[in-house]
């Protein structure tokens, strides 16, 4: 029997010790009409058959190792150093659980403490938690936290239309029972217009940089305007871009969140990822999520523990800051190993490569008849291209060239019909970019 070690003799001895005749006798509390129901599942497969079957399913997908990818929009293909998967594959890490018993969980605890420190360094903030489920849920929890910081008295949230559409949708799901109104993203409008909407009823303003269209927003002066109304400012950031651009913390952000997937986590058809979440020390008691702190043991040696748990559901129950009772620890470990492997110079270099290659791609594409680069502001690794045909048709054609094209913006922004969001990272060679340009030229003819 897979994974069950009992022999017939073991079972007999155990039943005798318990004082019942058959295992079925242990289930007599379950109502008879529901007990030993019929279950219609596929017949069991051997290990080899399972792997063959799943291998066949995996082969039905067009994977990015066999195609040239220019698709981003919230899930990114960045280089992952080989050490990352080797460390997260250590079963001392992946078969442990939440480090409730710190004396025998220092590996996980110190790794999370280092992760928190790395996220603070990257975002320019003072505290970071052990992570959320992903970037979208980190945004949603930031909105709820801002509402709680304002003692639930401010029920308006001003959301930039350039925050990732799925993050905005997730935030709306989270607040539907709380009476919070999310406004500002009904149509495309810039930060100046959003700032005019921030008033004394506003819990927070949420902006993203680089925004969903790839533009790096100038964040100067936003904090003062938002704080003048007593509201909080939430910034959604790309962690690779933070290797190159000024940290939101330096601009006075109150909460900085984002999708941590680019930090050493495979693209994995959308998950599991991690959401990073950082804030100011003065808000730490309102923050959701696990938090690791430094302390000492009985002999005075440095050690780490889960701390400030009076915020959390297992202590506070319905008065907790959130219902979250876990984090994405293994993804956070991957992020910590990734950031340590790249380090100060490596992350900057990766970010610069993205920047230069994306700008090169924009330049060559802008020269193709029928295509126009619509992005005006400085951008990072993504930019918008106006195309001579619907993006879905263009992408179908590009697939014939072995290319996975960009994100079709028409669904989220009706006025951006025939506009495509292209993503270029350090993984795309000049040769691939030139080939994309050539393919676009042929397809458009």
């Amino acid at each position: 029997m897979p994974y069950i070690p009992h022999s017939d003799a073991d079972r007999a001895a155990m039943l005798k010790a318990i004082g019942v005749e058959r295992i079925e006798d242990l289930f007599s509390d379950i109502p008879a009409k529901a007990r030993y129901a019929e279950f219609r599942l596929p017949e069991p497969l051997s290990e080899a058959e399972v792997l063959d079957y799943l291998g066949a399913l995996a082969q039905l997908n067009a994977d990015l190792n066999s195609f040239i990818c220019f698709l981003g929009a919230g899930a990114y293909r960045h280089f992952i150093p080989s050490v990352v998967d080797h460390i997260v594959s250590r079963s001392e890490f992946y078969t442990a659980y939440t480090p409730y018993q710190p004396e025998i969980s220092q590996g996980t605890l110190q790794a999370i403490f280092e992760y928190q420190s790395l996220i603070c360094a990257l975002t320019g903030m003072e505290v970071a938690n052990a992570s959320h489920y992903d970037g979208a849920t980190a945004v949603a929890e930031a909105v709820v936290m801002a509402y709680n910081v304002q003692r639930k008295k401010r029920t308006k949230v001003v959301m930039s239309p350039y925050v990732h559409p799925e993050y905005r949708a997730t935030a709306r799901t989270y607040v539907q029972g709380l009476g919070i109104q999310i406004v500002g993203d009904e149509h495309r409008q810039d930060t100046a217009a959003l700032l005019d909407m921030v008033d004394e009823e506003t819990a927070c303003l949420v902006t993203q940089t680089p925004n969903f269209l790839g533009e790096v927003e100038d964040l100067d002066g936003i904090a003062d305007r938002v704080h003048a109304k007593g509201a909080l400012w939430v910034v959604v950031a790309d962690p690779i871009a933070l290797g190159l651009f000024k940290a939101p913390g330096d601009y006075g952000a109150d909460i900085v969140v984002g999708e941590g997937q680019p930090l050493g986590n495979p693209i994995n058809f959308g998950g599991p990822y991690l959401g990073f979440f950082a804030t100011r020390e003065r808000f730490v008691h309102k923050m959701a999520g696990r938090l690791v702190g430094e302390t000492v043991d009985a002999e005075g040696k440095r050690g780490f523990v889960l701390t400030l748990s009076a915020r959390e559901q297992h202590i506070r129950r319905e008065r907790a800051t959130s219902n979250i009772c876990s984090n994405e620890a293994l993804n956070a470990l991957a992020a910590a190993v990734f950031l340590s492997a790249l380090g100060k110079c490596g992350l900057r270099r990766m970010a610069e490569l993205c920047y230069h290659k994306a700008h090169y791609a924009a330049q060559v594409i802008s020269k193709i008849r029928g295509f126009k680069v619509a992005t005006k502001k400085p951008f990072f690794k993504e930019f918008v291209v106006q195309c001579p045909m619907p993006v879905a048709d263009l992408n179908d054609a590009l697939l014939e060239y072995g290319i996975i094209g960009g994100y079709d913006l028409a669904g989220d922004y009706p006025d951006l019909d025939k506009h495509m969001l292209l993503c270029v990272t350090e993984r795309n060679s000049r040769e691939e970019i030139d080939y994309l340009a050539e393919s676009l030229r042929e397809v458009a003819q």
Partner: protein
Amino acid sequence: MTEPLIFEISRPGRCAASLPECDVPQAALPKNLVRDELPLPEVSELDLVRHYVRLSHMNHAVDTGFYPLGSCTMKYNPKMNEVAARLPGFTAVHPYQSQFTVQGCLQLMFELQECLKAISGFAAVSLQPAAGAHGEFAGMLMIRAYHLDRGDTGRTKVLVPDSAHGTNPASTAMCGYEVVEIRSDARGNVDLDDLRAHCDEHVAGMMLTNPNTLGLFDEHILEIADIVHSCGGLLYGDGANLNAIVGVAKPAELGFDVMHFNLHKTFSTPHGGGGPGAGPVGVTDALADFLPGPIAGMWPASSDSPDDEPEYGLYMPPKSIGRLKSFYGNFGVLVRAYAYIRHLGAEGLRRVAEHAVLNANYLRVRLQDTYPLPYRRVCMHEFVLSGRLPGAEGVRTIDIAKRLMDFGFHPPTIYFPLIVPEALMIEPTETESLETLDAFADAMLRIAEEARTEPDTLHNAPFTAPLRRLDDVRAAREPKLRWQP
């Protein structure tokens, strides 16, 4: 045993990653936006690897020893699952690729949904939620949406037993509901009189874990469902303890309207040191339209071309509560759970429940005459003892837990559920052998003896763990939450 922080082994100029040369002309950087400082560590690859390998040695894990952490189902995590989840056809696939290039991912999701429906008896399943608590939140939002859709706006309360996980009241509060706590009776079941007294037209529903956190199957489950339903409420099932009944009983047939599955408990995906997990939700027909999406669907081949394969796609249920995260759930976790379900089949899953319950009852019988067992009944997959040992009044559960580490065991869940003083919640799971159970029971009995004869040994434990007992109070009073130079 201590290990320096990664920042403390940093030396200027080192880097553990190699990146390609820039093969395009360099573009001008917007100087006003570029940061001056990036205070990340600088380490060599070997130093990096040694650092994390040494840290890994400071962890207790399922793969290093017995981990009877109650309510967490720390069963063995099959290596086959890890191989499957690392197939490049799964890891290197972008969630926004066109549907016809990701048919394998979508088929897997669809087939997993079908399996979870068959296991639970529910009519529909969404794989969106990323964790158990995330599934609870989804379930309560669906219950809320269901009532509002019927024009029933007067329901403001949700009933939660006093034995419930803390996530239950917290998830309820996140939906804007008032939480009403329901007492347990002397046998550890929901107190039916207290339940009846609180059931009225203001009740949106009840959250119930069955088997409950005492490890006991609520004998009145069908009556509870009737009482809640007769006042117009819906019954939420916390699937945290599904390992006890998987393959034996279907939650939908017990009267639940909605339930989350913990794929990282029942279906063997690793806990990852705290995540990632996955918490899909299953619902009855009445709630199917409210499920979070997108959900995987199958469109059969058209009848005029019988050779065609069916097509898989994604759709949003018509009255969906919305999406709970970006993309389609924790896909990598779904792959692992699906591999496990296909390997075991219906009979294998039934044996999982049977042996989980057998192991728990065996340990219960070995320990119940030494440690107080407040609810003396046949248990399901776990049971709750009290650490209040007769004749050892100065010893607390925390001391017993710390001493267990010296015997090489991870302690059980402690101080939960709240209704048992000094609780020790023990869940052995089905993957542990009789020898392991006996070794653990022997250690528990010896510790009980030590509690009476040498209590200081317990008060000062652990002795052999990487660190001695850690000072939680200091961590909370003087928070140091990041490294600073």
